[in-house]
């Protein structure tokens, strides 16, 4: 590498970034929008799930139960006048579930002999996750109610095991805490790839690539200058994303800034190289866009563990996820943000990222030959 040439090329890239707003938009506006929309939009925290409830035959409802169900912030209970009304509300999608108290519910509760009071919960499982959560919350509400009533009337069974869950790292159980760091990975893989892919496409379109290739600058200098300059821009974009994560979404950063920077740097090298690679290979825009989508956005959402647990995927798909560096980045980010610098977890992921970056750069240098054919 010739230092003067490299410096000249970096200065050129930097001037272009400053003059042409499109790369600044990709580096800062796009991550901002994606983080905000995904961070708020991808919430698995079900609050105020609507539940219709009624008593068969229109019997009385125990007022303490009404209170208990109304007290939980997770449920919003609507006491329906009849079974038809509740069912209609469910069909229309106005409520997610229907709770039916048997006609003799109150009566049996008053005489807790051999027959338990019965209630039936029907949830719409078109969204199975929300359905499972709702079932859990309803059962939980009943449990709380019973223990209150139990202490009053000595109803509850004494003895037996009692489960005390302790939620580590995320005691409030906010899904944003694990989703938003994952969204950073999505955002960085998109911006990193788009930045270089579009920039190279522009050089081809405007014919400047041709004069660069005919100059004494070597491929390593041309690729290197782009990587270095856009690396700086990408790190700026990363810094902004981290600040949004911490201050807008309130996700705690328990690990060190150094580990975070290092992880981000490794991932950024890979995505920038990937963008260069795609744009060099696929000059056809339509195909390039599809390839970019298939290899960045989709794996980052589906196969990275950002949203869906890799552990519950089928084996062949689990094996496939190892091919996408987003997986390592998401795992590392979630650890650094929520658990801290847990090196036994970080090392393998960092190694995966470093390997991917190396392969990306080498592959890019391989395919960007100094010729047009």
């Amino acid at each position, binding site marked *: 590498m010739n230092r003067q040439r490299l410096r000249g090329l970096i200065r050129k890239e930097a001037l272009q970034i400053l003059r042409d707003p499109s790369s600044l938009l990709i580096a800062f506006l796009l991550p901002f929008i994606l983080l905000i929309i995904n961070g708020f939009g991808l919430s698995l925290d079900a609050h105020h799930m609507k539940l219709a409830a009624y008593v068969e035959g229109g019997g009385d409802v125990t007022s303490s139960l009404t209170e208990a169900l109304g007290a939980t912030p997770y449920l919003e209970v609507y006491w329906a006048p009849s079974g038809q009304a509740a069912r209609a509300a469910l069909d229309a999608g106005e409520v997610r579930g229907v709770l039916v108290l048997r006609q003799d519910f109150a009566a049996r509760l008053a005489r807790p002999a051999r027959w338990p009071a019965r209630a039936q919960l029907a949830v719409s499982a078109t969204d199975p996750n929300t359905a499972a959560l709702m079932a859990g919350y309803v059962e939980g509400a009943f449990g709380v109610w019973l223990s209150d009533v139990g202490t009053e009337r000595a109803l509850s069974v004494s003895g037996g095991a009692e489960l005390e869950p302790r939620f580590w790292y995320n005691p409030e159980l906010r899904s944003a805490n694990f989703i938003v760091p994952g969204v950073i990975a999505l955002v960085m893989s998109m911006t990193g790839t788009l930045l270089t892919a579009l920039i190279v496409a522009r050089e081809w379109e405007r014919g*400047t690539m041709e004069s660069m290739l005919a100059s004494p600058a070597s491929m390593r200098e041309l690729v290197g200058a782009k990587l270095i300059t856009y690396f700086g821009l990408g790190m700026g974009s990363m810094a902004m994303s981290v600040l949004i994560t911490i201050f807008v979404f309130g996700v705690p950063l328990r690990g060190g800034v150094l580990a975070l920077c290092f992880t981000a740097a490794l991932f950024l090298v890979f995505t920038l190289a990937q963008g260069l690679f795609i744009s060099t290979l696929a000059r056809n825009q339509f195909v390039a866009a599809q390839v970019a989508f298939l290899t960045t956005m989709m794996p980052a959402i589906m196969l990275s563990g950002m949203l869906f647990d890799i552990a519950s995927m089928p084996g062949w798909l689990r094996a496939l996820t190892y091919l996408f560096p987003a997986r390592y980045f998401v795992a590392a980010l979630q650890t650094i943000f929520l658990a801290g610098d847990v090196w036994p977890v970080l090392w393998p992921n960092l190694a995966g990222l470093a390997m991917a970056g190396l392969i990306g750069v080498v592959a890019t240098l391989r395919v960007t030959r100094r010729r047009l054919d």
Partner: protein
Amino acid sequence: MSGLLARLEGLGYEFADGTTALDGLSAEIRPGVITGVVGPDAAGKTTLLRLLAGLLRPTRGRVEVLGGAPEAAHAATGYMPQRFGLYEDLTVGENLALFADLHNLTGAVRDERVAMLLEFTTLKPFTGRNAGKLSGGMKQKLGLACALLSKPKILLLDEPSVGVDPASRRELWRIVERMMAGGDMGVVWATSYLDEAERCAHVLLLHEGKLLAESAPGAFLAPLAGRVFRLDVAATERRHAVGRAKAQGGVLDALVEGDALRLVMAPGAPVPEAALLGGANLRAAPPRFEDGFVAALLQKAPELAVGELAPEPRRGARAADGPAIEVVGLTRRFGAFVAVDDVSFAIQRGEIFGLLGPNGAGKSTIFRMLCGLLRPSAGLARVAGRDLLRAASQARARLGYMAQKFSLYGELSVRRNLEFFAGAYGLRGAARAAAIARALRNFELESMTGTAAGALPLGVKQRLSLACALLHEPDILFLDEPTSGVDPLTRRAFWTRIGALADAGVTVLVTSHFMDEAEYCDRLAIVNAGQVVVVDTPAALRARVKTADKPEPTLEDAFIALTRREGAP
């Protein structure tokens, strides 16, 4: 190395899709002189230059630059690609600094060389301006300066003069010749302007990837001595005289040139008789490069000669009273920039009217406003008595349009393209079938109905474009730079067709930056810097600039003189 800059041996290049760009080229590039690579578009000029620059690797044969592989000679090569290869959002100074860094220029040498080039190119006052904001001519000079920074031994220029005005073109030649003075830099200059070939020391004439001839321009023209004549004809008779002359035996080529007919006779053919051709004052003329090119092409590929044309259906006199096209005070602003400034003219029915000017002069903007593609900021543009922007779609059914770029559907077959445009113009059933059959026959496309339009040779693409524009027998035909880049024979065939259309009563509006082509028009509007400088017949325009030292000025001379005179206060 024996004093050679580059040597080509049986050089061939095939694209990945199998089309041949260059076929068996052998030649030598010498230092200290300009070697012209001359030919129409798709002749292989750009491919040859890219091979010399090491940007492509030959699929056959060998190319050697400075005694080695072209890649190894990058430090001694200056290369200016077709679109100049400048970073448009960097300033003039920053572009030069980048290329200086790329060539490792430092200290005093660097400052001195940058200063010299800024002075040569007169770009010094614009050092701080973005390259994208320069005019076409200035961009071209900056591209040249960047290529010259390293003091290359071999300078490759890919069509540097395309689309710039004649004055800038002349300046470019001056700069290159000045840089060459006293050194041994060799220049390879690719061009489709045949008149530029005459300024080169050595010419490689390319056509469809093959080397048609390789010699000094003089040697190339020697066999034509005594075979080229000029014949005065009446201005109204010029187009018919061409037809008559071509029908004569022994006439290889005939074309309109000013007030005269230019004739190139076949080898050994007798001197033609003026009276028989309907003209007077037959005299010998010095052969030009284009004459040589046409003669060489016809010798290699006689089938390219223009055959008989089917007669065009005569257009009825529909709006016989008014002018076909009328423009009053037409103005178009883009922000603060006035692209077209208060332009007025009128075009009569059956007239071929040319808008002549360099790129960026505003002729395309006028043209687009006339077609209803662009809204005027002020003034009126009426076609067949109607404003196309407001007129119903029926009004558009009376005009045909052929865009500058090939703008048919490249992925669709010839027949599908014709079917689409027939349908778009509302032709259906038997009328549509008949129109398509006629177009296929008249434009000699019958043998390639199934070929994808994008895969056709350039000349055939142009025929297909015209065929699509004429399917519905329009009264008015708009042609935007119809012949840019095609070879002279195809261009002759094209103008013969246009002449026949005008004779059938079709009004033709054509834009061009080829000065010689404007001779085919009945009247011309010279457009410069957004204004119509003058409207007149070609003969009258030339007569305006006739002086004692230039008794027979060309339209290019007229253009330079008129734009300078009108432009200066």
